[in-house]
């Protein structure tokens, strides 16, 4: 037994070192695009939504334009359609992440999109079937722990995939303020190809409007209003995608307008103001357009 324990004791330290290096690697912001979001301290003002605001809204621009103090500054806590549609999972994650001040001076920008209030399941109101239940966001109990072992052990994305896709290909970088900067080829032919693929995926999916998700969005707005000002935005996309959304969700604009009136939160839609921006794939803004859009957003927030 002594020999076994001695061997084990000698073998183990290098395993611990390998494990530590593995855990440390998650903090490399070009390797993992989500880890830092759930392994950092509580945040103040927030950008909430899916991959459109995750890539399309730059907190640094908002912070500068709005002249926010350090303890009010924005953090981009948007993820993707898979991880962060509106629902109990995302709601809980947001509430566990926000840090509030007594004078309620925070600002919350919530991006609204039909896809974040729909479910692909036949019963869109069965919360147990929500797609985000099987993702890291539902399995990370603490969003401010660093290192975040829940996230690391969950293995939402495999390490070698991240190495290849993110590190080797250099496809993106997560900034300290949560903005996800994506580096992709923006040649028109390549963009066109991506748009065609995205439209095909969009048309193939079956999205059923979920009352539960709408209710979750409502609850989130009410909860956040206690700590500051809430703004709703419908971000710009290529007209083809908006046209498709209008085709399958014709009532969406009215629903959100009514919601904003009912809850007395400003709402801005870019449904008819999307031509001036450029997109990487018809849905996500390019880096330059993200800058331009963020300035536009800041200007609107100032006026409202």
């Amino acid at each position, binding site marked *: 037994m002594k020999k076994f324990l001695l061997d084990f004791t000698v073998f183990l330290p290098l395993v611990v070192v390998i*494990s530590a290096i593995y855990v440390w690697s998650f903090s490399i912001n070009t390797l993992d695009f989500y880890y830092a979001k759930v392994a950092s301290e509580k945040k103040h003002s927030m950008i909430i939504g899916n991959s459109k605001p995750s890539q399309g809204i730059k907190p640094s621009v908002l912070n500068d334009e709005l002249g926010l103090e350090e303890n009010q500054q924005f953090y981009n806590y948007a993820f993707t359609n898979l991880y962060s549609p509106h629902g109990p999972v995302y709601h809980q994650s947001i509430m566990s992440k926000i840090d509030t001040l007594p004078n309620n001076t925070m600002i919350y920008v919530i991006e609204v999109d039909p896809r974040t209030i729909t479910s692909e399941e036949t019963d869109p109101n069965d919360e147990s079937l929500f797609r985000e239940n099987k993702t890291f966001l539902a399995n990370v109990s603490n969003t401010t722990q660093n290192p975040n072992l829940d996230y690391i052990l*969950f293995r939402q994305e495999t390490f070698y995939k991240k190495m290849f896709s993110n590190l080797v290909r250099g496809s993106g970088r997560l900034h300290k303020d949560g903005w996800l900067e994506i580096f992709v080829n923006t040649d028109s032919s390549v963009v066109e190809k991506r748009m065609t693929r995205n439209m095909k995926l969009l048309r193939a999916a079956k999205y059923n409007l979920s009352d539960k998700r709408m209710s979750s969005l409502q609850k989130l707005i009410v909860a956040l209003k206690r700590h500051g000002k809430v703004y709703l935005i419908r971000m710009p996309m290529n007209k083809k995608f908006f046209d498709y959304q209008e085709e399958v969700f014709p009532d969406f604009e009215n629903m959100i307008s009514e919601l904003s009136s009912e809850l007395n939160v400003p709402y801005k839609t870019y449904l008819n103001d999307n031509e001036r921006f450029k997109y990487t794939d018809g849905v996500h803004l390019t880096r330059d357009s993200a800058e331009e859009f963020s300035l536009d957003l800041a200007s609107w927030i100032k006026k409202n």
Partner: protein
Amino acid sequence: MLFNSIDFAIFLPVVFVLYWFVLHKNLRLQNFLVLVASYVFYGWWDWRFLSLIVFSTIVDYLIGLALNKTEDNIKRKSLLWISILVNLGFLGFFKYYNFFLDNFIAAFSLFGTEITANSLNIILPVGISFYTFQTLSYTIDVYRRKLEPTGDFIAFGAFVGFFPQLVAGPIERASNLLPQFYKKRNFDYAQAKDGLRQILWGLFKKMVIADNCAHYANMYFNNTEEYSGLALINGAILFAFQIYADFSGYSDIAIGTSRLFGFNLMRNFAFPYFSRDIAEFWRRWHISLSTWFRDYLYIPLGGSRGGTWMKIRNTFVIFIVSGFWHGANWTFIFWGALNAIYFLPLLLSKRNRNYMDMVANGKLVPNLKEAVNIIFTFGLTLFAWIFFRAESINHAFAYIGGVFNGKFFNPDQIPNLSIVVMVLVIFFLFIEWVGRTGEYAIQNMLTSKKRFIRWSFYYFIIILIFVFAGKEQDFIYFQF
């Protein structure tokens, strides 16, 4: 609790320390610890199902004792049947109720009679297919007087619920495992070291090979109509390695863990994809189940004695039941029948025992004939796996049809990263080939070399696990 989880990583050393440092002087207490640890392990999934395994244990313990107390053949047979009915009854209800109900309704509708019945929302208790067979082996062996019944309930409970192999085998025989609970276990350095090595290899198989293959296999099987022939073949190959690495990986971890506690479990896999014919494949694949069916079903039916028709009947019965054991779906039955069709020509021509040794024994590479046989046998099993994996018979045929319909070669449909997985599979096959004379691939690897070299290899495997561990998937045999 999963073997590849933090929960188990904490559970195992705690049990190990209590077992060898606190309770090592008292065999009964040590067995009691194994029993409690096993129930904690099992209850971690769902404590409600503990009642089933406890009930099964009590019934078979009492039946074992009762069998010993009477010489009356009718009484003994009745007791045996009680055990069979209780164990298979639970299995039948939890696993097959809805299947039989749905098919009953479908059969009636064929005659133009529509009947309605409510299917039940039944959760399948993890491991029920395994532990019911394990405990049945006890009562059957006691009935056959091959085994003395035990009066030690703690030892018996620990045997039935033994946590390393409780939920996915190997399905142990009472005659092998139960006596190990009666004897004092002394810590054996070589055995424990071997156990850790086998656990490491099992984790590599599960986390690197199986989980990565699963991701792409699921992609191809879940969207069959979108893929070209080559992609679908790729999907079938990936599934073949997923199921092998997953299941044999679990067995390796189970056997390795048992060794840490001084127990020797039976081997469950013996490099089946190096088989030269189907008969050899079935001697090397899920050995604990195939030998269980051989000893408790095939031989009592007459085995391969008797006339040709009896041989054919018995072969089909054994393979179809084996298929059905895997799940309540016609795909499993079809898979079993297909394997019976593969096996029968060898049996009937008395060529089913041609290859009893390891292929290319003592040689570096197989000869041409061996290589062709290996590839051909793999091809047969690959074809059968399509049915095993498919959601339905129609899906299986659609998958096979998809290989030949439309465009065969479309390299855009093979994701770049699946090539990484194929490289990992090739590496895995290489290690398995080199280590094929051991009980598991890395058992004897580099053991004659200096510790530095050996340990470097183990660290390399650990690094591969960290870097290449796939997205977590349930152990595939949990659903059986």
